[in-house]
C-alpha cells in the first residue's frame, strides 16, 4: 500500500509539473514570437477567440501571473480549454476528444502487442543463449531501435501502398464509409491501422527484446535456477516459471519509463499517415499556431503517459510481493 501511495504521489507531482511547464513555456520564452503572433492575428480574431488566445499566451495583463496561474489550473481541472483558433467556434475539448479514441486504439493496442511479442522473443533469445536466435536477433533489434519512426512509415507507404497498392496510406478510415459499429467501418479502420501499427511495432519492439534478454541472462545465473535444474524440473517450466517470470518485472518498470518514448514516436507516425489521432492533431495545431489546442494536446498526451505509468506500477505491486511489504 505504501508503495502505491508513493507512486500516486509521484503521479500527482508529475502532473503538476506538466501543468506548470505548459503554463510557463509561452510566458518564459522571449517575447518576440508572442508579439509577432498577436500582430499577425490583430483584427482577425474577436470575442471569445481573442480572449482564448490572450489567455493561452499569457497576455491577460490586467491579472497578475499568480492569478492567471490559478485561473489556468481551475480551467484545466474543469476541462475548460477554450476555443480553437483554426476551427472556430469549436471548443478545444471536443476537438481533442474526437482524436483520443484513435490514438488510444492505435498506440495502445500496438504497444501491448510489442510488449508481449518483444518480451517473448527476448526470453527465448536469453534461454537459447549463444544459439542462432541469440546471435542473430539482438544486433537486428539494436539497429531497429535506431530506425526513425517516421521514415519506417514512409518506406512502408512506398512499398505497400504506392508500388503495390495493397493497403491505404493515410487517414483512419475510408471517407465514404459512415462511422458506426458495423462490419464495413470496423474493417476499414483495421486496414487503415495496419501500416501505422507495423511502423510503431518495428521500431519499438527492439527495446523490449533487448531489456528482457539482458535481464533474463542475469536471472539465469541465479542460484535458484541451478537449483531448479538440479531438481530435474522440465526446462520449459524453468524457462517460464523461474527465469522469465522473475525477469519480466524490470521489463514492466521499463515499460512505464519508456511509454514517453513510444508516444513520442507515435506522434510522428500519426503525422506520416495523417492518422486522425492526438499526435497528428498536435502537429497540425503547431503548424496553424493554434495555441489552445496545442496546450490541451500536450496535457492530454502527458496525462495518458502518466496513467500508463500508474497502471504498470499497480501491476508491479500486484506481481512483486517485495513492493507490498512496505519499507
Amino acid at each position: 500500500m505504501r508503495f502505491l501511495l508513493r507512486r500516486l504521489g509521484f503521479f500527482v507531482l508529475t502532473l503538476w509539473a506538466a501543468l506548470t511547464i505548459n503554463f510557463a513555456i509561452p510566458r518564459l520564452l522571449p517575447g518576440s514570437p508572442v508579439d509577432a503572433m498577436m500582430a499577425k492575428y490583430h483584427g482577425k480574431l474577436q470575442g471569445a477567440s481573442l480572449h482564448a488566445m490572450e489567455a493561452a499566451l499569457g497576455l491577460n495583463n490586467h491579472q497578475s501571473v499568480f492569478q492567471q496561474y490559478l485561473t489556468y489550473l481551475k480551467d484545466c481541472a474543469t476541462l475548460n480549454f477554450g476555443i480553437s483558433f483554426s476551427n472556430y467556434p469549436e471548443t478545444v475539448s471536443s476537438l481533442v476528444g474526437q482524436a483520443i479514441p484513435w490514438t488510444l486504439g492505435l498506440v495502445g493496442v500496438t504497444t501491448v502487442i510489442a510488449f508481449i511479442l518483444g518480451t517473448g522473443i527476448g526470453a527465448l533469445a536469453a534461454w537459447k543463449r549463444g544459439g542462432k536466435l541469440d546471435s542473430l536477433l539482438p544486433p537486428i533489434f539494436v539497429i531497429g531501435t535506431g530506425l526513425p519512426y517516421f521514415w519506417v512509415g514512409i518506406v512502408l507507404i512506398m512499398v505497400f501502398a504506392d508500388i503495390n497498392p495493397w493497403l491505404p496510406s493515410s487517414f483512419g478510415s475510408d471517407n465514404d464509409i459512415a462511422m458506426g459499429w458495423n462490419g464495413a467501418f470496423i474493417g476499414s479502420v483495421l486496414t487503415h491501422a495496419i501500416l501505422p501499427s507495423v511502423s510503431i511495432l518495428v521500431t519499438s519492439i527492439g527495446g523490449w527484446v533487448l531489456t528482457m534478454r539482458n535481464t533474463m541472462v542475469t536471472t539465469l545465473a541465479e542460484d535458484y535456477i541451478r537449483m531448479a535444474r538440479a531438481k530435474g524440473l522440465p526446462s520449459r517450466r524453468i524457462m517460464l516459471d523461474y527465469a522469465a517470470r522473475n525477469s519480466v518485472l524490470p521489463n514492466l518498470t521499463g515499460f512505464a519509463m519508456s511509454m514517453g518514448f513510444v508516444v513520442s514516436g507515435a506522434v510522428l507516425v500519426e503525422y506520416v499517415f495523417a492518422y486522425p489521432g492526438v499526435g497528428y492533431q498536435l502537429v497540425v495545431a503547431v503548424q496553424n499556431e493554434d495555441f489552445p489546442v496545442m496546450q490541451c494536446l500536450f496535457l492530454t498526451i502527458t496525462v495518458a503517459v502518466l496513467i500508463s505509468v500508474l497502471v504498470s506500477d499497480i501491476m508491479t505491486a500486484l506481481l512483486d510481493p517485495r513492493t507490498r511489504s512496505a519499507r
Partner: protein
Amino acid sequence: MRSLLTSIRHNPKAIAGLFILLVFVVMAAIPNVIVSGDPATDTTQVNLGMSGKHLLGTTAFGQDIWLQIVHGARPALLIAIISGLLATVLSVLVGVSAAYLGGVLDDALNLFTDVVLVLPTLPLVIVIAGYFSQHSITVMIIVLVITGWSYGARQLRSQALSLRNRDFLEAAKVRGERSSYIIVFEMLPNMTSLIVANFLGAALYSILTASGLEFLGLGNTNSYDWGTMLYWAENNSALQTGAYAWAVAPGLCIALLAAAFALLNNAFDEISNPALRPVRRLRVAAS
C-alpha cells in the same frame, strides 16, 4: 583505457558501428572533396531519376539529391555530438552527485529526474519549438539537452550508488580527500564505459528527435539536413510522384547514423556488463 580499446577491437558490433560513424565523419569533414557544388543550386532539371550525372537524381526543385545528402552529414553529426555531450555532462552532474550526496538531496534529484523522464519528450519539444518563430540549430540543441539527460542520469546514479561503499572510496575518504576529488578522480574513471554508453545513447536520441522535428518543418527549413530534406520530399509528394530516392535516401542516412550510435551503445553496455557478452564456444572441447 587500454583494456577498453582492446574490448572494442574484439566486439563486432562496436567495429560495425565505428565503421559507419567513420564514413559519416569523413562526409562531414570534407563534403566538397567528395562532391563539389552548392546543394541549393537549381539545375533546372526537376525530378530526374538516378543517373551517372546525378547519382540519386534531382528533387522537385532541380537540386542534386546526392549533393544534399553529403552536405547533410555535418549538421547531423554536429547536433548528435554536441547535444549528446552536453546531455551526458548534465546526466553525470545530476546522477553522480545525487548518488554521492545521498539523503534528502538524492531523493530530490532522483524525483526530479523521474519527472523529466516520464514527460513525453517529443510532444514537449514540438510545443517548445512551435513557439519559436526562428528555428536554428542552437534552439534545437538546447531543447534536446533539456529533454535528453534524464535517462542517463538515472543509470549513472544507480551505478554510482553501487560504487559508493567500495573500499577504495572509503580509503580516499580516510585519506581526507575532498568530495570533488573523490567524484572526479576515483568514481568517474570507474564509470567510463557507462558514461561513454550514455553519450552514445544521448547522441542517438538527439539524432532521431532532431530529424523528427526537421521532418515536421520545425527545424531550419533553409538548411540541407536530412530531416529537412524529408520535409521537402513529403511536402512535394515525393512518393506519389515516384521520386523514391528523395524520400528514402535521407531517411536511410539518419537510420544508418542512428544504427552506428545504437550498435556502439550496445557494445559499450556489453563491455561494462560482462554478463551480457555473447558466450564463446569452447573449441578445445569440440575437437
